[in-house]
């Protein structure tokens, strides 16, 4: 049985042993936690405070959003597979899984776009009431994060074609993966807090 060669990004010696970029990404994600914390807190504080409708129970389609949540969760799996692929030096496989991740991410965002246009037609805009205000801004920030993630994923794919990304660059994929998983976890929190927890309205 032949041994599998594993690749790892080289980096300079650091005081903690962690590469600078990885440490920076963790710190950035920690900071981003507070960003979403503030947005989610605002949503929760204003829950049930809208003076006029439409109200959440009137517009939410939980089965629909559950499906798109599952899509996003699946994309974390494909992301893990992409990282595993580059660590084995399999650039072709890596591209496939990265593209799959990006596609799933775009499907998620597309699903949100469809969902929001439906809400809008049902009378819920940014300025209709507190629900519209807090809901769109919270999910909009998250969707933007997903969009940036998709851009990064597609960039990795493109760069692997031009030779800018080689099997030595597992760190780049790992970092994008960290970001992607973070965005996924934030969605789990948002989905639970916003969609699943009943408000009585």
């Amino acid at each position, binding site marked *: 049985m032949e041994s599998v060669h594993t690749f790892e990004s080289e980096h300079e010696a650091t005081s903690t042993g*962690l590469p600078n970029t990885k*440490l920076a990404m963790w710190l950035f994600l920690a900071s981003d*936690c507070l960003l979403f914390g503030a947005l989610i807190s605002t949503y929760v*504080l*204003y829950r049930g405070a809208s003076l006029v409708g439409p109200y959440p129970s009137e517009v939410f389609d939980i089965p629909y959003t559950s499906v798109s949540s599952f899509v996003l969760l699946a994309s974390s799996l494909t992301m893990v597979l992409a990282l595993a692929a580059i660590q084995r030096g399999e650039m072709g496989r890596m591209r496939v899984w990265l593209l799959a991740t990006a596609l799933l991410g775009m499907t998620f965002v597309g699903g949100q776009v469809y969902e929001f246009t439906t809400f809008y037609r049902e009378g819920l805009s940014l*300025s209709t009431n507190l629900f519209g205000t*807090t809901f769109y801004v919270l999910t909009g920030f998250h969707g933007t994060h997903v969009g940036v993630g998709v851009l990064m994923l597609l960039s990795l794919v493109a760069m692997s074609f031009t030779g800018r990304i080689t099997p030595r660059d597992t760190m780049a994929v790992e970092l994008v993966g960290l970001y992607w998983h973070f965005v996924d976890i934030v969605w789990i929190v948002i989905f639970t807090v916003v969609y699943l927890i009943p408000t009585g309205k």
Partner: protein
Amino acid sequence: MATVSVPAEGARGGLLRRPTATTGFWSWITTVDHKRIGILYGITAFAFFLIGGIEALFIRLQLAQPDGKILSASTYNEFFTMHGVTMIFLVVMPLSAAFFNYFIPLQIGARDVAFPRLNAFTYWAFLAGGLFIYSGFFLGGAPNGGWFGYAPLSTVEPGNNMLFYALGLLMTGIASTASAMNLAVTIINMRAPGMTMFRMPVFMWMALVVQLLLAFALPIITVGLFQMLFDRRFGTHFFDPAAGGDPVLWQHMFWLFGHPEVYILILPAMGIVSEVLPVFARKPLFGYQFVVFSGIAIGFIGFGVWAHHMFAVGLGPVANTAFGISTLIIAVPTGVKIFNWMGTLWKGDIRFTTPMLFAVAFIGQFVVGGLSGVTHAVVPADYQQTDTYYIVAHFHYVLFGGAIFGLFSGVYYWWPKVFGRMLDERIGKLHFWLMVIGFNLTFGPMHILGLQGMPRRIQTYPATLGLGAWNMVATIGAFVIATSVLIFVLNAIASFRRPMDAGADPWDARTLEWSVSSPPPAYNFEEIPVVHSLDELWHRKYAETEGGVVVPVPAGGAGTDPAHDSGGAGPEGHGAGGHAIHLPGQSYFPFVAALGLPLIGYGVIFHLWMAVAGSVVLLVGVYGWAMEPASE
């Protein structure tokens, strides 16, 4: 002599040919050298200091007498708002950033920061934000809702003024957040071999705490500013009571950031003072670990006191009690620091150079501000004090008498290292004494004015309130301060006429930055030093005999090649005799990316297409940056 290499021009296919100029205008635009970036931060911050000071002089002229007529109400509101925004976001923070940028790598024994291009980006983003906010003066009105921007006033007052506020602060916030990532990673991850966390200078510890405070506080105000922006521009109702919103939500968002912010403002100066006192008292900082732990404690507790800015809002007795108590608690670690500084002076051999004078005055004046702060924590008393000049007195004592004085101490202390020349001591002392007198004349009486019923943010007051006399004294004091600043400017200009003869270690100091030439070479250290103790440089110069007497080490001190220092395994491939030193390459892209930000800002205010254009510029900048290799 080490061989230094940078990425060759046009190498490895980036979007643009790699810039390589080392002198001249473009060398500054494309620099990624932390020392140059530090100088850029310092000069820009000082320019804003002059502008913010002029705004203050106008405010004082307007208030010198009852029923003042110097400024109209609307101009006054712009001036006091911009004075606060300027001094906090465009002066103290970037001045601290200047010191952090210049000295973090030098004090931890590194060649540069973790992400040099990101570092450059933070400067250009800061500059963009500052200029953007000020452009309001020419484009319809500068921010006029107070630096604290309370809603609903800030969301309903007509005009674009507060859009400049929200967008400009988002830009400077991006700069500070990116900087926080960069400098925190640098301090945690790039220390020289042997420099454990507890062998780091206190200034490095304070720098680290500040970066973490920035990383965790800025996201909250970012959300708040977006909420304000959206309320104004897109019809949302975050702070709109007519739709069920709560204006107090803004206050929570703001102060959850705002209180850690004041520790962000003071901790760098406290770090500087912790460096300066030992050098000029000729003994180590008393209670190093306790000073470090107090700084960390202040950082933590600082997240738990925010509503002490809101005692009169009507949050209820439970909230007021909780925050009153947490505010009293934070006085304890603050006191610990003060006592340890005084312990540093005890049994020292104190040379009252200008940096030392500023450092000692810091302690004296900060104590006043700290004590008045304790009186604010007595919540019922705060019902009288809040929103009066008593508060204005308090925060100027800690932020001017404290932070600014501490920063000036750093300026005088580190000037020779940065510019290779000393600032004149006699002119420096004149600057100091005038500033001390002017400062106390201006802000001392404000304690009385507040207690006698003068609220904040009023452009005038009637003669019947008996407030005229102390207001006049305060105005006179302000002009004394202005004179002292002018004297400093003259001192700075005069210093450049001297030859660069300061030498590596003019003060006989204790930390690693004094072990290299003044100014340092581009690569900082010929060889990365190996560190054996706290105050590493001091221990290379001096040793203690058995009797506890401190004697110079023969042939030790500044200029010694650290490679001769015995210390076990040599540094791993970091330029030990003969190896090439790799420096990060210069780049256009941080500047380009930062350029996108104000375009987006103007677009949001005026024409949405400009925001799209700005996003494209930002994207191009980021992609160019990503395509470019960091170093060979």
